[in-house]
């Protein structure tokens, strides 16, 4: 496998394998542009401009409209678990600035209920309901990983903060120990132990309550046909708690679950794929 190249973007480290100089430059530009456009913390981002105009129609870029469609698709696939309208809930939970700058002590006002069904998108004309703040980061990073991989003409793999996609196979270390061979598609881990602050609040909002999830799982890893699939599936499975493994099995998606004290479980699809001695759960 060719040299692994690294650069920071979207608040994490991006790793690219299999890229020549031009391809790496294109991948960097893709991540830089996406970060600039979808940042929740930059007043000049398109996302902030849209959120400031909530309640009024606004013409958005094609890229933005595509990500809104993708996030609405994710919400539909997960029965609303991965919801693009959780921006207000994230702010209410205290995640209102870059995680590195997040200070102790934050507001605890009740979160606004998600209203994704009221989002109107006609071509590039987007209307977000008043009082709603979009957060598209549930899909933007993983979609960018998939698109970056598509830029590598000779194949390879791309990883951004652990969200990965490959076209040629790669060994992947897993949370809590062990590793697996990702032959094709994407793999992503969603968790509630990393981006935490204050009294254990974190960035994974349960749309049912509008508050940080109290899932039984600390981390969930899922393997999808694309990195978007894997990321959306991992988030949904984590938010579903104990029914997460069965939910993934219904879709044939391998999932690996880390609970408190490092207890690891896998669903039937994962066990069948890697034939692990670990007990599969349903």
């Amino acid at each position, binding site marked *: 496998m060719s040299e692994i190249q690294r650069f920071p973007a979207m608040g994490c480290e991006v790793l690219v394998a299999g890229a020549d100089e031009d391809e790496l430059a294109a991948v960097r530009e893709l991540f830089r542009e996406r970060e600039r456009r979808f940042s929740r913390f930059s007043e000049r981002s398109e996302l902030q401009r849209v959120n400031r105009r909530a309640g009024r129609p606004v013409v958005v870029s094609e*890229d933005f409209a595509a990500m809104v469609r993708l996030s609405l698709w994710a919400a539909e696939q997960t029965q609303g678990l991965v919801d693009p309208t959780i921006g207000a809930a994230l702010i209410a939970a205290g995640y209102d600035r870059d995680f590195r700058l997040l200070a102790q002590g934050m507001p605890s006002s009740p979160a606004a209920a998600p209203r994704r069904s009221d989002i109107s998108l006609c071509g590039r004309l987007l209307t977000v309901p008043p009082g709603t703040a979009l957060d598209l980061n549930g899909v933007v990073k993983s979609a960018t990983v998939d698109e970056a991989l598509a830029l590598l003409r000779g194949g390879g793999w791309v990883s951004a903060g652990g969200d990965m996609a490959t076209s040629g196979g790669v060994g992947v270390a897993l949370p809590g120990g062990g590793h697996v061979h990702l032959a094709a598609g994407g793999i992503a881990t969603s968790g509630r132990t990393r981006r935490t602050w204050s009294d254990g609040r974190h960035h994974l909002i349960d749309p049912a309550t509008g508050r940080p999830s109290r899932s039984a799982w600390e981390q969930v890893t899922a393997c999808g046909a694309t990195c978007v699939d894997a990321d959306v599936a991992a988030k949904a499975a984590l938010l579903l708690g104990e029914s997460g493994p069965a939910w993934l099995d219904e879709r044939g998606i391998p999932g690996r679950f880390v609970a408190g004290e490092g207890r690891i479980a896998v669903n039937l699809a994962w066990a069948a794929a890697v034939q692990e001695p670990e007990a599969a759960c349903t």
Partner: protein
Amino acid sequence: MAERSLGAGRVAEARGRARAGKTAMVALAAVVFGAGLLLTRSTASGHVKQGIRPLVAPRRFVRTVERNALAAGQIAPPQQAPPQASTSQS
């Protein structure tokens, strides 16, 4: 009779001048419109002056994602150690 013929000729001449004037005005309007259009496209800040390749999700990818439900990837038992990359929560 001669007077009537003279009047008809003057009317025909007037109609001809009016037709020519109208034609000239239409042509002038078309030229002004075209020039204004080109001027606007070349100077207005909202118009793209050179070909660019927008950074958007490839349509094929978007269509594939929109058409399909969540789907599984392919994993297998580890084939080499140590692994080249890691997945971690984000």
